[in-house]
């Protein structure tokens, strides 16, 4: 079978063939490996690739694959054959979104207000941490997307500037 993954914009194709004797022939790009594999418990795989024996942890959620190997965790996106996954857009530029999950403790501006570059707009708090959302440029507040007391997620837009 062939599997397709994308990591940081690079696409990889992995071909797996089961051989006589139970081992696998796995091709990654141009490189071919003979691999022995055992599933220890769900999500835990012991592999041997040559004289190296490895334990890999794999978590599958939707099309995301988390793989931990040698204590580094890698995030892969599984692509379905023939159709590319949609790319997630780049995060919104500027300081107008929550950079951490937390609670809005103060909104310092009003809709329609003119603001200067660097002017604090919203104060966000999580345990023992405060973060000021400041205007990345001068402009007018088109809309406020939060109010004091709101619990917001990372990446959530809090203020719209014109």
């Amino acid at each position, binding site marked *: *079978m062939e*599997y397709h*993954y994308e*990591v940081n914009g*690079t696409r*990889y194709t*992995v071909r*797996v063939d*089961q051989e006589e004797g*139970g*081992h*696998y022939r*796995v091709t*990654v790009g141009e*490189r071919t*490996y003979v*691999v*022995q*594999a*055992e*599933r220890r*418990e*769900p*999500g835990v*795989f012991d*592999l*041997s*690739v040559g004289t*190296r024996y*490895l334990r*890999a*942890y*794999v*978590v*599958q*959620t939707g099309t995301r*694959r*988390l*793989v*931990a*190997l*040698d*204590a*580094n*965790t*890698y995030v*892969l996106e*599984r692509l379905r054959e023939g159709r590319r996954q949609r790319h997630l857009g780049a995060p919104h530029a500027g300081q107008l979104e929550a*950079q*951490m*999950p*937390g*609670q809005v403790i103060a909104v310092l501006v009003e809709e329609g207000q003119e603001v200067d570059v660097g002017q604090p707009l919203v104060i966000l708090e*999580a*345990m*023992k*941490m405060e*973060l000021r959302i400041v205007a990345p440029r001068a402009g007018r507040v088109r809309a406020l997307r939060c109010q004091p007391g709101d*619990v917001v997620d*990372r990446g959530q837009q809090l203020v719209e500037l014109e």
Partner: protein
Amino acid sequence: MFSKLLVANRGEIAVRIIRACQELGIRTVAVYSEADARALHTLLADEAHLIGPPSPVESYLHAERLIEVALKTGCEAVHPGYGFLAENAAFAETVRAAGLTFVGPPAEAIRLMGDKVAARARMAQADVPVVPGYEGEGDVDEFLAAARALGYPVLVKAAGGGGGRGMRVVAREADLPAALDTARREARNAFGSDRVYLEKYVDRPRHIEFQVLADHHGHVVHLFERECSVQRRHQKIIEESPSPVLDEELRRHMGAAAVAAARAVGYVNAGTVEFLVDAERRFYFLEMNTRLQVEHPVTELVVGVDLVKAQLAIAAGEPLPFTQAELSQRGHAIECRIYAEDPARGFLPATGRVVRAVEPVGPWVRVDAGITTGDTITHYYDPMIAKLIVWGEHRDDALRRMAWALDQYIIMGVTTNITFLRDVVRHPAFQRGDITTDFVERYFVGWRPPDTSVPDEVLIAAALAEQADTPPAVRANHGDSGERAGDPFSPWNVADGFRPGRV
């Protein structure tokens, strides 16, 4: 000893306290907020009671509710852990007023040490060195005169403060009036009091603290120092003992000062006296933490005393089982705090579900974890996942062991500071012990995780996992031999016998 105790906390410290109680045969009552149902501490305790919504104010800070649970369940004592109500004098009083034993110091000692100005004065009386400063209640001119006498830079601090809140470094006389205003406003908002004071600014100090234990029979001992200079945003991330900088003489002087500080406030139970040590190896009282510290394990491993059990014994009225002369340091211990946070983005806390946690295991490797596989980290509480503590015969040995242990630690599902810590413990300045409180800002500004390309083995593992997790019927349609269709194990069993490539 008590027969039943309420643990008024959550996370790893609640777990730590419950385990100590289990060994001593003390039954435990855990409390939890709605965000913590099924947290580790609720599983380990003999009973667990819901105390309110996730917000700390409505749960772990809700003193009346905690005491209500303690009384209802027949507890005799309350252990506050650290954080939350641990340094709240009123809580200690309320607990005692309810006829319960508070596992901690007298309310008076908590209150006095919580007032930084009063504490400075009491310490000076007891000949414990304090940073030169000005605690007057005068007007701006008097502050200006005092600052001039001290010499710039000076530090403006809140009397009721701690943790860096309401603190300002002022380098020039012209900036002082504005700094006083800002600090007063911040202090009022944060602590309800706008009292501020001045201190001479100690440049690039070391943060070294002494653990003390005091019983109800007048015995006070110290258990030597912890070096806590590696900090980010005034929060410690790596602690060790002994300090690489103390010699026997300085250690003796500072230990004696710590004991004097505790005696001066009538201290009982476990506490920590924090000092600044400057480049000339002069030391100054900074503050006293009137509770168990996060970093208590490094002392435990080096001195060989279980501090939680010691707290319980002291609270039960037992005398200390050792004298100062019987205590000694052996080897070297280091603690790294494992946080759900992103060091490449200003150490912003991260949240999410830990889909898998694999802790390092080995001789002299200790993991005090509050979060394990399947737990969710919310924004309501401190994002600490665990404390990783190692002991070694000497500092180099401990450093190697810590580097090894960090290399084994796997947390999947949330961003952590583990990769960052790996780089810190291998940094030449850290290896030399050349650490001051500006260590992180000095050497790790702009730190980024190493740009790891994806090893082929990762892609191989991902692909084989798809293969293993595809039901045989489906795999047969894709050319798979389908041999495993008769597998007697259901696919989600542990030990399911999937071993296609078994040698």
